[in-house]
């Protein structure tokens, strides 16, 4: 078999695949001697064809003759004055290479078959660079986890051929080990099981009188991992809250779940049971929502980690009930501030700018390819996310109401569909259940998964057809834990038997254990009645989706695995799913002794306002938003950006999922870890208030809002850390009850701390993301934040208090403060209801909530989004008695406040509606393009043109 090498170069003067970007990236590293970079795409193809056909492949398929040249074979190092360094970046063997698969398909369309295709990127760097600089450059251009770098013009990449696997049954002798020896086994096998868990497993195997196999231990480790069962949040907790003792039997059940149970909304269809929470949309359809985190993988490989984050969360709605169609994505990230020199970054951590760019690119490429609009998101910057960036990926799906539940039955066949299984993603679930260290990059590189969006898209297209025809009884995704968790969960009440050699593999050489626990992407499992096998297989085959029967559901309540006839695993389902020892933990919360800074009143606050608009958290995220296709499917009716020049921020997105119905879904979120630095309880309530405000601002019904929790915390083995989480969980209960907004789904990610090589630890702040989904009855009534017409009146609804603790105003002055915003649980819901009523009655021209940066920032955003000025006076501001300071009035982040633009002739109706809640007129819209705010005594304390405000807001992240 001949090996062909093809190199494809951009023709001079054409914009290639990013040679100039690479140049900028190298300069960012502080290497200035590289004068020019040429890049090429490399294809290594093994196939029996002649030179003439190779030329056709190169000229007709691989290179675009208008803007590219090709070379068959290895091109010679170019002669030049400067020294040239050649590097080639190849994927490690076994890493998914989507382009290679497509090239194979295309060559077979051309009439020939080829054995293997591999792709690589080649860079030729012109200029003197030393070894140290080259290492830096390589680290920037490649990713150790998934790629190998070949330097020089002769070196060859590793062979693509892997040896086949020969069965070698491994048993691990544990029944006679003592506690420390058990722990050693756990550590050696990367099981992340503690001594108590290992002891429980030991007892089980003693009771059945044999030693476990490796795959049995791996299955237990995966099923019992923090990532899969959330043992911390479900444990019983003795909580010491400022000396008051509170006991929780099961933290989640006693807080988050309890709120949903007590609210008992009849429009909740399925909560905390399935892969996503499901609520009623209209008479015929339901919508479901799930938000996942993909933090650890994104720390190691930002692009791949984020891409598989979105790829993974899409399979949650697809695997909910009998499968939902994804209609909108949300993405929320937490990064360290990006303006850092490389010397400040500890070993084992990627630069935050690279993480930010990689994560955004990953979400972009996967989400866009799947054809799902990414409509909502947020980015929160804080340096404590340096070692552990947070990547929250969410998805909303729609499905017929009679398809909301699925159940496998004894005798159903186990069918795996979609992608093939490879070595990627092994130990993902267990690895993401521990802290990251500086060595994770090398040790856990196999935990990173590589996505191929088109494989998932094909799977989605065909699943929806099979669902329509009722050809399967249950479906679930292979997420963390792979086949092990998918089959294990579906068969938990029944039993299942799987023949592992039947699982289609990407390449040879996988052991039975690797097959079972691989977290390779784009796979789902369906339960199929034997009589439907032919029909369903046809649907998948028709669109080139691989679907394979690998076993069946039984009635013996055992999980049995075989490899070529040899039994390699048999566990009782009961032990697998319910054998995990129950934990009791201690948690402590002690209120912090914080002081409120004394800030003198200033002559004017122009500078403060401009600075806050230019903080990373408040600044425009247009750079990110434009890279996402937020309009595919044609349903985005309130887009993430709006206003007169389509670049102002909107509070929430609204999608209209059915062309023949005016109903819509509003999507918003709340996150503010700065408040948590003071008290996570109030942070949680502020988060719920913000998420609710967002969706209410665009016109969602406050009585049809469902919310989701995502807890990201550091090491919860520490009682104080767990204590702050308990505070947040208490907030979840109180907030959900007060707003009448049930939690329908949630997820936690703990151990978000990074241990540096010198032993210092970087822990993330307590981070709770609240996501909200609200039903909009008629999208034609939606409103946006941009001011509509000069002469209109501006009102604020809600009371402004002296609550600058954790605010952005304090942040720019390097203060934390003590007075964290405290949501008034009695008033918040009433205000939201009145705002909704005003919008629904058509009285509102524009509406925006006050959040980060308070009243001044909210007014600035409304003004520049609409292209109008504002003349405001704080005289009309409803405020608490302790809020006399003008800085506090402008920048306090008190909750439950909305700014509303009303046409003068609707004033009476609006005022009537607002009776009973604090509201006041604070200004009017002007033609003159300035934001002017007066002190209440006639003095101008803000006077800035809207162009300057907008520039301040846009310039920081104009990447």
């Amino acid at each position: 078999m001949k090996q062909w090498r093809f190199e494809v170069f951009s023709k001079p003067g054409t914009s290639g695949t990013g040679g100039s970007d690479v140049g900028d990236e190298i300069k960012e590293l502080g290497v200035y001697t590289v004068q020019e970079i040429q890049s090429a795409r490399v294809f290594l193809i093994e196939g029996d064809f002649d030179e003439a056909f190779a030329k056709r492949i190169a000229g007709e398929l691989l290179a675009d003759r208008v803007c590219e040249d090709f070379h068959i074979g290895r091109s010679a190092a170019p002669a030049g004055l400067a020294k040239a360094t050649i590097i080639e970046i190849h994927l490690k063997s076994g890493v998914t290479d989507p382009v290679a698969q497509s090239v194979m398909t295309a060559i077979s369309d051309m009439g020939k078959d080829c054995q293997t295709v591999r792709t690589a990127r080649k860079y030729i760097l012109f200029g003197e660079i030393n070894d140290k600089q080259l290492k830096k450059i390589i680290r920037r251009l490649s990713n150790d986890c998934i790629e190998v770098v070949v330097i020089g013009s002769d070196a060859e990449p590793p062979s693509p051929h892997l040896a086949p696997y020969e069965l070698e049954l491994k048993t691990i002798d544990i029944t006679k080990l003592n506690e420390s020896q058990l722990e050693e086994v756990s550590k050696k096998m990367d099981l992340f099981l503690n001594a108590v868990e290992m002891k429980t497993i030991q007892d089980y195997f003693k009771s059945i009188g044999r030693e476990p196999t490796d795959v049995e231990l791996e299955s237990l480790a995966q099923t019992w991992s923090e990532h899969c069962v959330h043992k911390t949040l479900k444990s019983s907790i003795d909580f010491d809250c400022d000396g008051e003792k509170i006991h929780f039997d099961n933290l989640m059940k006693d807080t988050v779940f309890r709120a949903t149970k007590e609210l008992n909304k009849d429009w909740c269809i399925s909560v905390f049971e399935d892969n996503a929470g499901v609520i009623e949309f209209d008479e015929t359809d339901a919508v479901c929502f799930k938000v996942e985190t993909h933090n650890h993988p994104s720390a190691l490989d930002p692009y791949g980690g984020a891409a598989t984050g979105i790829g993974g969360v899409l399979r949650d709605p697809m695997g909910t009930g009998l499968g939902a169609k994804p209609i909108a994505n949300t993405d929320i990230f937490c990064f360290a501030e990006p303006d850092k020199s490389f010397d400040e970054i500890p070993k084992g951590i990627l630069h935050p700018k690279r993480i930010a760019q990689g994560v955004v690119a990953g979400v972009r490429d996967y989400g866009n390819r799947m054809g799902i609009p990414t409509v909502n998101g947020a980015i929160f910057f804080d340096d404590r996310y340096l070692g552990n960036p947070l990547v929250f990926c969410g998805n909303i799906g729609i499905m017929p109401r009679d398809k909301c539940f699925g159940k496998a039955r004894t005798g159903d066949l186990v069918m795996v569909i979609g992608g093939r299984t490879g070595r990627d993603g092994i130990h993902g679930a267990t690895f993401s259940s521990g802290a990251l260290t500086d060595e994770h990059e090398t040790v856990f590189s196999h935990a990173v998964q590589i996505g191929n969006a088109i494989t998932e898209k094909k799977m989605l297209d065909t699943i929806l057809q099979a669902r329509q025809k009722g050809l399967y009884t249950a479906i679930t995704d292979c997420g963390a834990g792979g086949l092990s968790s998918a089959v294990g969960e579906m068969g938990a009440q029944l039993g299942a038997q799987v023949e592992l050699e039947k699982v289609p593999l990407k390449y040879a050489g996988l052991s039975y254990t690797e097959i079972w626990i691989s977290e390779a992407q784009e796979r789902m499992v369906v339960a199929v009645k034997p009589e439907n096998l032919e029909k369903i297989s046809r649907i998948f085959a028709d669109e080139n989706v691989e679907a394979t029967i690998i076993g069946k559901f039984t009635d013996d309540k055992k999980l049995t695995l075989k490899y070529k006839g040899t039994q390699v695993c048999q566990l009782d389902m009961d032990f697998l799913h319910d054998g995990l020892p129950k934990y009791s933990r201690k948690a402590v919360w002690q209120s912090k002794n914080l002081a409120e800074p004394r800030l003198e009143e200033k002559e004017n606050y122009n500078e403060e306002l401009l600075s806050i608009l230019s903080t990373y958290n408040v600044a425009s995220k247009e750079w990110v938003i434009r890279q996402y296709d937020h309009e595919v499917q044609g349903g985005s009716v309130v887009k993430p950006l709006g206003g007169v020049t389509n670049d102002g921020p909107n509070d929430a997105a609204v999608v209209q999922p059915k062309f023949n119905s005016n109903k819509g879904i509003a999507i918003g979120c709340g996150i503010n870890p700065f408040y948590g630095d003071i008290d996570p309880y109030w942070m949680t309530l502020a988060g719920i208030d913000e998420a609710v405000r967002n969706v209410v601002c665009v016109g969602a019904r406050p009585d049809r809002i469902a919310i989701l929790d995502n807890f990201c915390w550091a090491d919860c083995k520490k009682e104080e850390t767990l204590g702050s989480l308990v505070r947040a969980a208490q907030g979840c209960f109180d907030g959900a009850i007060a707003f009448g907004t049930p939690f329908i789904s949630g997820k936690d990610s703990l151990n978000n701390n990074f241990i540096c090589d010198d032993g210092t630890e970087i822990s993330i702040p307590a981070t709770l993301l609240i996501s909200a989904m609200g039903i909009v009855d008629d999208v034609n009534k939606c409103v946006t934040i941009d001011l509509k017409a000069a002469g209109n009146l501006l009102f604020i609804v809600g009371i402004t208090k002296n609550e600058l603790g954790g605010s952005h105003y304090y942040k720019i002055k390097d203060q934390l403060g003590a007075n964290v915003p405290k949501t008034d649980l009695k008033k918040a819901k009433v205000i939201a209801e009145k705002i909704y009523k005003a919008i629904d009655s058509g009285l509102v021209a524009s509406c925006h909530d006050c959040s980060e940066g308070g009243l001044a920032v909210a007014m600035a955003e409304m003004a520049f989004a609409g292209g109008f000025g504002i003349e405001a006076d704080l005289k009309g501001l409803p405020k608490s008695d302790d809020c006399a300071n003008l800085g506090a009035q402008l920048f306090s982040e008190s909750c439950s406040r909305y700014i509303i633009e009303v046409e003068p002739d609707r004033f009476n109706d609006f005022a009537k509606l607002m009776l009973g809640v604090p509201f006041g007129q604070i200004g009017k819209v002007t033609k003159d393009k300035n934001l002017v705010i007066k002190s209440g005594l006639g003095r101008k304390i803000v006077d800035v043109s809207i162009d300057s405000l907008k520039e301040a807001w846009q310039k920081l992240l104009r990447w």
Partner: protein
Amino acid sequence: MEQVRALVLRAAGINCDVETQYALQLAGAEAQRVHVNRIIENPAMLDLFQIMVIPGGFSYGDDVAAGKILANQLIYHLYDRLNEFIEAGKIVLGICNGFQVLVKTGILGKLNGSDEQQITITYNDSGKFEDRWVYLEPSSKKCIFIEPGQRIYLPIAHGEGKVVFENDGVLERLKTDDRVAFRYVDEDGSFGPFPVNPNGSTDSIAGLCDSTGRVLGLMPHPERFVRFVQHPHWTRLEDKSRADGMTIFNNAVKYVKENFI
């Protein structure tokens, strides 16, 4: 045939097929989404349709280059059939990825009489995928999809939308043949750099037609502005009837009605 019938092509990674089907239905066509595999199995089914639309998306992941793998598939399995379809006086529309496919099959990618592709679509000058709204000035008299003189407002969403030519002569010939269908302009109809021309396309070209005027490819998405509320700031507009994308679908259906039914 009594009914205007449109085929919306599906393939791995095509993802705008549902909304494209809806736009065609709004225009009065009976629209059907059909997977490319079905057409390869039974090419005669093309006879049932007078309109074929290749919608947007990322066919085969845009691996190698945008639209390339699907174009290759069409070349090797359906090229003659597609040409027969066009020669029969029927019409073809390629939107975004569909435009890239039509260019890379050669149907829109070369001048009359040439064997090799002389036109291509490559990476945006910005180097980034971009979703933004643009104004389009129609400029061809022969393109049957166009409403002469009507400037339209549509979103683009692509990373590879820059139209380039093998040499200046190709562009001159296209102009002479009246094949430049749409150009990017600003609100007042003037040309300009980014963001008016969002991808750096040569001569601000956003869409091309073939020499018959019955095959159109364009980067912007007409199917994403077929209802008023899809406008990016509809909440501030008075005219609630706007749906600029519909002109393209309406003209397609009108043409079929006038010529086939």
